C-alpha cells in the first residue's frame, strides 16, 4: 500500500502540472467575463491562434501564403529567415493586441447592452472565424514549437533528473516529472503575480477593477469602457499566448489545442466565473482530480480489489461529472460571488 501511496504522489504532482494549463485558460475566461460579462468561448482558439502565430513568425512563414499564391500565381511560402524567439514573442503579443482591438471594434462595440446569450453566440462565431483565419494564415499541419532565449537555452525537454534521483534515494522509486511542466508552473506563477500587481497597483488595473464592478460607476469616474475592454482582451490574449506556448511545446501546435478550452468549462464551474483564485484552484483540482481518479480506477490493486472492476480513460469525463456535481450543490463555484437575483 505504501508503494501505491508513492505512485499516487507522483500522479498528484503530474496532475498539478496539468492543472496549471487548465488554470491559465480558465484565467483568460475569467478576465473577460468579469470586465464585460462576455463568456468567451474563443479563449481556447485564441491560445491556438497565438501559438500558431508565434511558430509562423519564428520560422519566417509568409502569412496567408496559400491565399497570396492562389491570387497572384506566385509560389512563396517562406521569407527565408528565422526570427529570434524573443522578438517573435513580442510580435505575437502585438498581433494579440491588434486582435483585441479588432474584436472590440468590429464585434462587441456593436453589441453593447445585448443579452449575455447573444454575446456568447458572438464568441462562438469568433472562435470558428479565428480558427479559419489561423488555418488560412499559417496552414493546418502540426508544428513543433521551441522557444529559445539564446543558443542552447531553450524550454527544457525531458524528465527532471534531479527529482528522479532525489525521490529514488528517498523512496526507492524515482518520480518522473517533466522539465517542461516545472518550467510551465514557474512561468504561470510569475504571470499570475504580475497580473495581481497590475490590477492592484496600476491606474489601468484600478480602472479594470472598476469596470468589472459597475459599468455606470466606472463611467462616472472617467473610465472609458471601450479602452478597458480592449485592454482586457489584450491581457486575455497574452494569457492565451502563454498557455499556447506551454501546450505547443509539449504536444506540438495543432488544432486539438482549442479543445482544451472545453476543459476550462468544468474548471470555471468549480472555481466560479468571476474569481481569479477560483480559476487557479479550480484548474489544479481538475488536473489533480482527473489524474488521481484515473490512477485509482485503472489500478487492479486499488479499484480492482475494492470494487472488483477497473475503468480506463476516465480523464475524458471526470472533470465534467465533477463540475455537474458542483453545479447541483454549489452553483456559484468555490469562490464565486453568491448568485442572488435582485428584486
Amino acid at each position, binding site marked *: 500500500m505504501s508503494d501505491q501511496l508513492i505512485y499516487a504522489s507522483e500522479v498528484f504532482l503530474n496532475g498539478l502540472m496539468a492543472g496549471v494549463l487548465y488554470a491559465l485558460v480558465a484565467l483568460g475566461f475569467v478576465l473577460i467575463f468579469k470586465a464585460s460579462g462576455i463568456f468567451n468561448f474563443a479563449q481556447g482558439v485564441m491560445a491556438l491562434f497565438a501559438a500558431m502565430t508565434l511558430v509562423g513568425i519564428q520560422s519566417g512563414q509568409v502569412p496567408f501564403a496559400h491565399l497570396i499564391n492562389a491570387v497572384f500565381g506566385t509560389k512563396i511560402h517562406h521569407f527565408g529567415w528565422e526570427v529570434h524567439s524573443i522578438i517573435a514573442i513580442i510580435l505575437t503579443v502585438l498581433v494579440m493586441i491588434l486582435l483585441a482591438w479588432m474584436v472590440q471594434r468590429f464585434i462587441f462595440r456593436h453589441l453593447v447592452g445585448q443579452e449575455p446569450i447573444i454575446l456568447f453566440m458572438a464568441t462562438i462565431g469568433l472562435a470558428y472565424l479565428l480558427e479559419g483565419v489561423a488555418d488560412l494564415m499559417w496552414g493546418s499541419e502540426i508544428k513543433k514549437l521551441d522557444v529559445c532565449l539564446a543558443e542552447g537555452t531553450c524550454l527544457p525537454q525531458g524528465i527532471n533528473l534531479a527529482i528522479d534521483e532525489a525521490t529514488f534515494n528517498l523512496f526507492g522509486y524515482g518520480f518522473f516529472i517533466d522539465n517542461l511542466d516545472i518550467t510551465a508552473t514557474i512561468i504561470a506563477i510569475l504571470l499570475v503575480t504580475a497580473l495581481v500587481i497590475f490590477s492592484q497597483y496600476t491606474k489601468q488595473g484600478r480602472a479594470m477593477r472598476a469596470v468589472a464592478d459597475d459599468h455606470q460607476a466606472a463611467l462616472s*469616474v472617467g473610465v472609458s469602457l471601450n479602452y478597458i475592454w480592449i485592454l482586457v482582451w489584450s491581457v486575455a490574449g497574452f494569457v492565451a499566448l502563454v498557455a499556447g506556448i506551454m501546450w505547443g511545446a509539449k504536444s506540438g501546435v495543432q488544432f486539438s489545442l482549442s479543445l482544451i478550452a472545453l476543459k476550462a468549462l468544468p474548471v470555471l464551474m468549480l472555481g466560479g466565473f468571476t474569481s481569479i483564485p477560483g480559476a487557479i484552484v479550480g484548474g489544479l483540482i481538475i488536473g489533480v482530480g482527473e489524474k488521481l481518479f484515473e490512477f485509482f480506477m485503472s489500478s487492479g490493486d486499488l479499484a480492482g480489489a475494492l470494487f472488483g472492476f477497473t475503468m480506463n480513460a476516465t480523464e475524458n469525463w471526470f472533470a465534467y461529472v465533477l463540475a455537474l456535481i458542483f453545479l447541483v450543490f454549489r452553483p456559484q463555484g468555490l469562490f464565486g460571488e453568491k448568485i442572488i437575483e435582485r428584486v
Partner: protein
Amino acid sequence: MLDQAEGYVTADGRKIGGVVMEMKNITLRFGGVEAIKDISFDIREGEIRAIIGPNGAGKSSMLNVISGFYIPQVGQVFYKGAPRPPMKPFEVARQGIARTFQNIALFEGMTVLDNVMTGRLTHMKTGLWGQAIWKGKAEAEETANREVAERIIDFLEIQAIRKTPVARLPYGLKKRVELARALAAEPSLLLLDEPMAGMNVEEKEDMSRFILDVNDEFGTTIALIEHDMGVVMDLSDRVVVMDYGKKIGDGSPDEVRNNQDVIDAYLGVSHD
C-alpha cells in the same frame, strides 16, 4: 440682484461668479416620450443650484444630459463658455464634472477607501509604461492621491468605515461614500441626484451640512435634485422647477415658492 455677466452676492454674503454651465433649448426624447422639452437654464460658479419637480418631471434626465449619459436631440450645452460637442460620460468626467446617482452606483466589491481612490482616477497621470519604469514617480503620485482621499474621508466623517466593503454598509452611509467618491475627483461641478432620498431626519441634516460645507470650503459648484422642499429652500441659491419635461419656474427659493405655476404643479401631484 442677478447680474448676468458678473454674478451676484447671496443673502449670507457668498460671492457667486459667472456662468459655468449653460443649457440652451435642450430637448430629449425617448421614442415618443419627451422627457425634456426645450429647457434652458444656467449654473453659476460657486452656487448651489437645485432642480425640483414632481416624479417623472425629467430631473434625472437633465442631470444625465449634463453628465453625458444622455445626448439630447435638440439643444446645446455650454461648459466654461465654450459649446460642448456630444461627449461620452467618461469624457465629461475628465472635464471635471463628477456625479452621484439616484439609485447609488458604487463599486460594491471594493472597500470605502478603494471607492474613494477610484474617484481619483482622472488625477492619475502616469501612463502604463511610466508606472513600470519610474516606480518612484508612480509611488509619489499614489501617495498624493491617497492623501486627498483620506482628507475627504475625514471631511465626510467616514474614517471608521474606511476599510469596510461597501456592500456591507447601510443605505445612508452608501450615499455618503458615493458623495466622497465624487468629491475625490475635486470636481469643478458636482451633480447630486437626490442625495437625501430615503434618509431619516438626522441623516438628512448631516448630508445638508456636508453639502453646504463642500460648497463653502472647496468652493465647489453644486447642482442637486431634491424632493424635500424644506431642504431645497435651506440649501439652494437658485432653483429650477420642472414639470412634465417643461421648465415652469426658475429663480431664488422665495421667488419659486411664490410662483403660481409651481404651486399648482405641486398641489396637483401627490408625493411620497
